[in-house]
């Protein structure tokens, strides 16, 4: 579904991604690990079309379409989702209005009628249950005053609402206690099918105990320098990144 070839990207003239290659197929879970500053979050930003970054080379195909030529909203409509490392607070925009605008924009893109108010609210109720998101949170402004754990649960709730084909979870485990981690990871696993795929970006092995990856990649200095199975994550947990840095520096 996703084919990234020799992707280069920079921010404010500084090159961060220096030739990333990655292929993701339906049903797969990929973990991308790597030390701070290796370009993990940049990769997720570039894939979702953050205007702060400039693509300077390479290509990304998503179900045969040139992903990089689409505006962020159309990437979402095509089935790409990013769970933010730092979900943005939007005071004054209610979760209900936010989700309705998002869902109906997608339906319009796909040539479907907008959902009725009752259908929409029913869907909200169903999907909320997946991550045990309180109704009170769902009626508040987007992420405003949410705790760290609530924000992350809210991300997975939005993922459940939008039913993406490819989800990127950017440091979803950061700032979560063990209970919240279990709920969030449980939500991701419930949404898993043979037809969708997940890219998990993380520092630590911890999250991978809950969300089992098929492939583990190490991103370092803007390139994927090592790929392996789940055992690679365990090895990194044990030995840290220094041995990889030594190999490449």
């Amino acid at each position, binding site marked *: 579904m996703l084919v990234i070839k020799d992707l280069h990207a920079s921010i404010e003239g500084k090159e961060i991604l220096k030739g990333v290659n990655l292929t993701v197929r339906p049903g797969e879970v990929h973990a991308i690990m790597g030390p701070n500053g290796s370009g993990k979050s940049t990769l997720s930003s570039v894939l*979702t*079309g*953050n*205007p*702060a970054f400039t693509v300077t080379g390479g290509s990304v195909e998503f179900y045969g379409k040139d992903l990089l030529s689409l*505006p*962020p*909203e159309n*990437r*979402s*409509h095509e089935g790409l*989702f*990013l769970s*933010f490392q730092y*979900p*943005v*607070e*939007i*005071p*004054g*925009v209610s979760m209900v*209005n*936010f*989700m309705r*605008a*998002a*869902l109906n*924009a*997608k339906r319009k*893109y796909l040539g479907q009628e907008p959902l009725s108010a009752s259908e929409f609210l029913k869907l909200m109720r169903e999907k909320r249950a997946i991550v045990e998101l309180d109704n009170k949170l769902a009626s508040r*402004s987007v992420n405003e005053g949410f705790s760290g754990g609530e924000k992350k649960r809210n991300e997975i709730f*939005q993922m459940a609402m*939008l039913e993406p084909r490819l989800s990127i979870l950017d440091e979803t485990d950061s700032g979560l206690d063990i209970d919240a981690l279990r709920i969030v990871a449980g939500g991701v696993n419930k949404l898993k099918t043979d037809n969708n795929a997940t890219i998990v970006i993380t520092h630590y092995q911890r999250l991978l105990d809950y969300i089992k990856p098929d492939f583990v990649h190490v991103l370092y200095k803007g390139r994927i320098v090592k790929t392996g199975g789940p055992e690679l994550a365990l090895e990194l947990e044990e030995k840290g990144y220094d041995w990889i840095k030594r190999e490449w520096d």
Partner: protein
Amino acid sequence: MSSIKQYTNIFLAHSAAIDAHSAPVLNALRPAALRALENARMPRKGDEDLEATDLNEMFAPDYGVNINRVNLTADPAEAFRCDVPNMSTSPYYFFNDIYHHEAESLASRSDGVIVSSLCKAAIDYPELVARHYAKIAPLGNAQVALNTLLAQDGIFVYVPRNVALERTLQLVNIMNVAQPVMAVRRILVVLEEGAQARMLVCDHTQSREVQCLSNQVIEISLGEGATFDFYDLEATATTSRRASSMWVRQAAGSNLLVDGITLSNGSTRNRYHIEVDGEHAETHLLGMAIASGTQHVDNHTFIGHNVGYCHSNELFKYVLDDRATGAFAGKILVASNAPRVEAYQSNRNVCASSEAKMFTKPQLEIYTDDVKCSHGATVGQLDQDALFYMRTRGIPEHDARTLLMQAFMSDVIGGVRIDALKDRLQHLVEKRFAGAMADCGECAACIKGKR
């Protein structure tokens, strides 16, 4: 030449006709107003607190004044119906500056409430009106003096001691002119001790070709423990010029909410001047301006805390698009013998285009130590992180911007104390940001149509 001269000339040539179509109480003030105008000049751009608006220029065109009170439309209510759904209001109308009302007369109420044409009230209750007319608005202000010189009518609201008006009073100002006209309106509100009332004033302009000017003075006197909501909503057209000033005196324990809203306009200068004279009074001053094209909105506010133990909260927000300009000058003054005052002022603005301009001047002037005060102003763009976040969820950029602009106004809308009006305002703001000009053709707080 000062723009005042042409109007004093009109007065000198037609003073008898002006007096004949008004009431002695109003006429009695004209000589003093004329004297005040002799050496006065309309403030120009660059004068203090007028960084962005030239009042002299606003009054300079050769506007006519409807001295002989020719009623341009037989029944304004037939041509224009105004209501806020689910909100039971008593509607009153001005067509330009000619008074008309369709509600049952409140003048004969047994509880002593008076809502009537100011001219009629000044004839029926001369002592009462004389006690309050032009007592708060100072003739030293050129716009007030000019208004006092020429005003022949207006609306008078009187709520006696401990009486609560259940229905919201709604005044609809409709400008519809065939040649350039200056409407001279006067609003006088008196709430005695413990009285309660709410008032919504909607300004609309129907004529799209010819420029018109509204010269409005509002005086509000709140007795001890009185509660008053005043919603001042402008949804006019680019042909509109508006110079409005509001002058309030608050007695002890009174509670005032003023909400100044500009949804669409041409060029507007509002002044909100509030003197807090009694302890434990509360003042909420809110404002919102949405301007696009070449529209101009200027709000000038003053809250004077003359005594202690009072609370005021001021919030003005602007969203400016295209080449619109906005201005805000707000001063809060805490006198030297006024301890334990809490006063907060905030002015926050979004310039949605690179050509929109905002001028802001938040000011605190404090002469006592024992106070809690804050003030601040920001001018910025829409939150780019929020915009991107919304787009990654599939919300198109234009819709995301609209949602963010609405959200920006949500705390001002949230300050409205009438639920039906709050909902209506929410809807109007959404519509305005979605691209539709709040247009009185098919209206804003009002719905045009046959009754």
